[in-house]
């Protein structure tokens, strides 16, 4: 399982080789610093810790700085662990967008934009009431939420107004359209959860894993 930490920069469009215009999300995906490499023997499972977004040392808590220093890393804002990392890395390594290649499929994990307290039309795509035909005060309401004396209760999971957004979401199987090594950028087809400037995790696709994912 390959993965990277990144920052969503925004969306644009690019022409691919066939001259087709494709919408992409631009993700700044590096430098990712390898911190700790966990192994089956020492930790009970295989994983790689990646740090991203370099930071002044004084801004990092001392316990965290100690951990970083132990694996001769650089102070970073964000740390993420990836299980069974297919790339052979050791602490202190720097990896970036080139982990992925053009044509690979990735999953993008991010925190969606917060919407606050929202009604059922926006939150659950209810259709609301009629706009005309004499309707009054019943345009964005959810309608009935139950039946009669039997069952006498509102069913569990009934969709109602409430807080929307700001939850972790994964978008699966997005194609990598372009890898820009110089700027450490990944251009990924389509939309990715989160606002501009938010952290995102770009992971090798679970449904379309890299065929010969090893050497690099």
């Amino acid at each position: 399982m390959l993965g990277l930490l990144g920052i969503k920069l925004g969306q644009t469009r690019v022409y691919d080789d066939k001259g087709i215009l494709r919408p992409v999300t631009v993700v700044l995906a590096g430098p990712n610093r390898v911190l700790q490499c966990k192994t089956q023997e020492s930790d009970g499972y295989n994983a790689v810790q990646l740090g991203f977004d370099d930071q002044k040392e004084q801004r990092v808590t001392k316990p965290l700085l100690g951990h970083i220093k132990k694996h001769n890393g650089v102070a970073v804002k964000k740390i993420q662990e990836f299980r069974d990392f297919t790339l052979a890395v050791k602490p202190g390594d720097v990896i970036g967008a080139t982990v992925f290649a053009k044509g690979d499929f990735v999953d993008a994990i991010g925190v969606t934009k917060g919407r606050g307290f929202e009604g059922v039309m926006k939150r659950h795509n209810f259709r609301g009431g009629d706009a005309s035909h004499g309707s009054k005060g019943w345009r964005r309401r959810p309608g009935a939420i139950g039946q009669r004396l039997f069952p006498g209760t509102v069913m569990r999971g009934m969709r109602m107004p409430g807080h929307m957004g700001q939850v972790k979401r994964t978008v699966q199987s997005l194609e990598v359209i372009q890898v820009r090594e110089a700027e450490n950028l990944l251009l990924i087809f389509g939309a990715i959860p989160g606002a501009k400037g938010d952290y995102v995790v770009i992971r090798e696709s679970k449904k379309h894993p890299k065929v010969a994912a090893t050497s690099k």
Partner: protein
Amino acid sequence: MNQALLDKIESEQYRKQAVDFSVGDSVKVHTKVVEGDKERIQVFSGVVIGRRGRGLNSTFTVRRISYGEGVERIFPVNSPRVEKVEVERKGSVRRAKLTYLRKRLGKGATLVKEKETRQVKKGAAAPKAAPKAAPKAAAAPVATPAA
């Protein structure tokens, strides 16, 4: 900084040599068409009846009369599939969008010089008459008001 990176990505896709034409011009658009595994050039000629968008998103619309039927095609200005845009004749128009051409029949539909169209309307009954002859009449914009 982020926007600068996005702008850079976009600017890389711009056409190396900017196409030079304006609304009202009669143009030949050379497009690359892939058939099977062969690539060939297809030419679409007509009148530019509008441009819209800016930057990478800009497109232009070309209208022509094909077998008596009006056909419009929208091309992205910066598409690599648009090989080149040849200007056959400069048009002189007073509007940014020539949607009024859609209502016209016959020669008037392929002409862009507004004053000229009135003269040609007499011959509007012949729809498929060669439009090549008409452009020559419109090519002299200064001479027409005097006449």
